């Protein structure tokens, strides 16, 4: 086996597993252990107490407390005309996640259409920065959203210009869902754009010649080819928004609390058993969903062979094209996207140069310079934070890409149980960030006693490892389908020429999936740059502070009074640095495409 596969691949598998065990499985397991024990013995009591609590599960709690009464309960409910049923905190969380997923898809899909099917100046740039929202710390997004959609925000100003509004969106489910779309619609756009670009034009054209209108051809031929990517994006969006925490906390208010918000409160009050139980249920639901999805994905056959992509039409083709209904719809979509995506970011930048009274100011940037010059203990300085973010980002790339590729290779291998293995390896997506943070704190920062020594794992290497663990599922998720579609014969040809499995991967398969690899790399970098929780937990002090950490520190800084000016200035810096990074990644990666 080892001979056939080459040692490097196996070393990669071992290193990946070791990293996962140290910075993920062990910490998480140490938390979840609380959820299956009571009084030091294995017990289902914590689960039953959560699932049987109507606050958590609403009408479904009877399934646990009194299963025998369920049929009669349903009968009564039907007899009463099937009124609306409450399913508690889990029910509400699912509802808002479904809503968020729907809106993310509705917002993201037209974006993919425009990027994949039309040519216009700046298309490449736009494609590069699509996932920018992904890196933005939620505090920034929350500030941007409040500044954009608040009562006195830019959006209401714009509405007033055209004689509409004002609308009250703040602290409603609507704004939470919009913010979730802000984060996740780009994910939809990114994944679906890639799929759309690989749709076989011949199939679409065949449908047209058989008599299908453009719309029917889309529905019958293109859409089925987009579905896997769309499903990936939707499943990920659902999982992310189901476990969404900072956005709900910052934009939602307590009435809109989700399971994760509740879990956070449990951790705050050190009710760790209930926190662990909530986390375990969340993870079970998310992992179950991912598993079902992975099985669906594996059953699908990727269209292989050479295919000609659909050609792009110019977005603007003479003055007449500006008034055709499709172009008008696209421009209307562009306006919506501008409001939803550029609006909050622009508002953020405006906030960074505006006093609370609305006067222009550069004080907040002067603040950054002052912090840079400061020698006071405990001061987070902006420039080292930028450097740290970039270093960790690059470090994460170097670790997460091999990890993701290794997992992708294992996933494409097929065989019994490989779906389950893949789901487990995708688990970092399905575990609550708060649970992971808690686990890291207990297992890594406080340390674990092994052979009489108390071992702790902190510092830059641990931070990079933690970022890589959060990031590699994105690499493997983008690389796996691409790898699956590589013609097996290419690898076989290389093997027959004497290459071992690792060499085949390196010389044949990876170059062929380079675009997917680049997309995964961009995700990995984004995850690292935006990561906050484990960075703070594992950092030894202000020396390893990153941009989001600096930003969070400046939120609490009262030297210019209690306002978010310094944080927005830092946020603007973060925005600028990451935009440049993305364009660079895309350009460098583009050479391989």
């Amino acid at each position, binding site marked *: 086996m080892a001979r056939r596969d080459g040692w490097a691949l196996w070393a990669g598998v071992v290193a990946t597993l070791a990293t996962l065990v140290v910075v993920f499985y062990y910490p998480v397991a140490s938390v979840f252990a609380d959820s299956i024990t009571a009084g030091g013995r294995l017990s289902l009591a914590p689960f039953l107490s959560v699932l049987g609590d109507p606050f958590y599960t609403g009408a479904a709690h009877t399934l646990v407390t009194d299963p025998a009464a369920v049929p009669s309960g349903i009968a009564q409910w039907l007899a009463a005309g099937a009124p609306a049923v409450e399913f508690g905190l889990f029910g509400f969380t699912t509802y808002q996640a479904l809503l968020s997923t729907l809106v993310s898809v509705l917002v993201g899909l037209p974006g993919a259409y425009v990027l994949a099917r039309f040519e216009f100046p700046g298309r490449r740039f736009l494609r590069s920065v699509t996932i920018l929202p992904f890196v933005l710390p939620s505090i920034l997004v929350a500030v941007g959203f409040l500044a954009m959609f608040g009562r006195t925000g830019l959006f209401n100003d714009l509405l007033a210009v055209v004689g509409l509004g004002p609308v009250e969106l703040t602290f409603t489910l609507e704004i939470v869902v919009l913010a979730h779309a802000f984060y996740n619609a780009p994910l939809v756009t990114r994944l679906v754009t890639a799929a759309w670009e690989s749709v076989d034009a011949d199939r679409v054209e065949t449908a047209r010649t058989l*008599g*299908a209108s453009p719309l029917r051809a889309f529905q019958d031929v293109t859409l*089925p080819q987009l579905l896997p990517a769309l499903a990936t994006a939707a499943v990920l969006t659902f999982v992310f928004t189901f476990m969404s925490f900072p956005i709900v906390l910052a934009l939602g208010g307590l009435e809109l609390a989700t399971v994760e918000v509740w879990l956070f409160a449990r951790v705050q009050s050190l009710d760790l058993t209930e926190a662990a139980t909530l986390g375990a249920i969340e993870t079970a639901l998310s992992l179950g969903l991912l598993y079902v999805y992975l099985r669906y994905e594996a059953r699908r056959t990727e269209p292989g*062979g050479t295919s000609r992509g659909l050609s792009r039409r110019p977005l603007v083709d003479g003055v007449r094209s500006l008034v055709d209904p499709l172009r008008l719809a696209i421009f209307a979509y562009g306006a919506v996207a501008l409001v939803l995506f550029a609006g909050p970011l622009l508002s953020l930048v405006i906030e960074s140069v505006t006093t609370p009274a609305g006067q222009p100011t550069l004080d907040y940037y002067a603040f950054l310079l002052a912090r840079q010059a400061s020698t006071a203990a405990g001061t987070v300085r902006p420039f080292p934070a930028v450097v740290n973010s970039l270093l960790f980002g690059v470090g994460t790339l170097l670790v997460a890409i091999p990890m993701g590729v290794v997992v992708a290779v294992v996933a494409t291998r097929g065989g019994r149980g490989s779906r389950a293995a893949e789901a487990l390896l995708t688990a970092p997506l399905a575990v609550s960030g708060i649970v992971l943070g808690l686990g890291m704190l207990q297992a890594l920062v406080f340390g674990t006693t092994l052979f009489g020594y108390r071992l702790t794992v902190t510092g830059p290497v641990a931070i990079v490892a933690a970022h890589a663990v959060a990031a590699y599922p994105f690499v493997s998720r983008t690389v796996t389908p691409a790898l699956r579609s590589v013609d097996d014969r290419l690898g076989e040809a290389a093997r027959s020429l004497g290459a071992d499995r690792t060499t085949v991967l390196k010389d044949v398969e990876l170059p062929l999936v380079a675009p997917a690899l680049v997309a995964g790399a961009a995700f990995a970098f984004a995850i690292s740059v935006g990561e906050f929780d484990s960075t703070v937990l594992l950092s030894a002090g202000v020396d390893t502070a990153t941009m989001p950490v600096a930003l969070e520190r400046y939120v609490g800084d009262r030297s210019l009074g209690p306002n978010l000016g310094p944080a927005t200035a830092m946020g603007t810096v973060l925005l600028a640095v990451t935009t440049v990074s993305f364009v660079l990644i895309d350009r460098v990666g583009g050479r391989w495409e």
Partner: protein
Amino acid sequence: MTDSDGGVDVDGLTVRFGDVAALADVSLSTDDGEFFTLVGPSGCGKTTLLRTVAGLETPTAGRVRIDGRDATDEPPEQRGVGVVFQNYALFPHMTARENVAYGLQFHDLPEPDGERVAELLDLVDLAGVADREPDQLSGGQQQRIALARALAPKPDVLLLDEPLSALDASLRKRLRVQIRSIQRDLDITTIYVTHDQAEALAISDRLAVVRDGRIEQVGTPEQVYREPGTRFVAEFVGDNNVFDGVVTEAGDRIAVDGTATLPLPGEADATAGASATVSVRPEAISVHDGDGQHPDGNGSTVGGREAGTVTRSAAVETVEYLGDAYRVHCRWNDQPVTVKTDSTSPPEGTVSLGFHPDAVHVLSNGARATATGGDR
């Protein structure tokens, strides 16, 4: 053959992609029920021409008429064409049956019992795999399903774009016979694109040789083979020997490579001293053992050939055995010459090659070309 009934008429078609002209002022016309092939090297524009007929490319200039009506501005779904692509382009999420049935819904062909689909699956001998998905079918099966799918809505015109090029040689030959017989049975106008000239010769009623976005020659396979209109056609279609030279004083020969000469056909109206290009098919050159050199060779009759044959001595370089014949690569002075002989043993050493004037075909220049057969 009028332009109004049946078939496809293309008039002054130009298709530009940016600065590149994929088709430059192309006109041609097919007959109703004709099997018409576009053949040429890759990138010559033949596929663009097919796609433009299908409505998949928009012409920069020119008109397309299908079945007598102007279809230039019609979208593909209204043109009544069936297209088969090189990569089959089967819908991967549908079974073979569903693929074939797909077009029926748009053509007012109600399918209560699936009769039409069954008929077509029978037509391509694939009733047995109707419920398989494309990835469970072999390449040849996929191709036949693609053909059945294209034919199902009863199109006026069938357009085939390199439909066999992804298949192995023997399967390709079998399938092209099957395609041809189905086409005859259905009597459907067919435009077939291929880069394989042998296939083009084998399958077509007429063919057009396309090069650099222009039509080089149109004609029946026999016309194109025997009387190529240009040097390109002569070299592209079938094996050929092409010689450049100068017409001799007497006007009945062409001096190739200085002193060595070949006869010109009687009807060639040649101007002494002009440069000329001629072609001679390998199988039209006779081969005999030994040095049969007769520099002027006038009147000598060799090997039962009629009068006028001139013989030239050449050295055998390599011999290919073809089963029913040998292909012999020789060198005559400095000229490579390929000949084909059905002798029972391979020639070797020095041989004498016999050129009959009627076997020599004048391509250009100093001599007015013989009729090229292409009437359009």
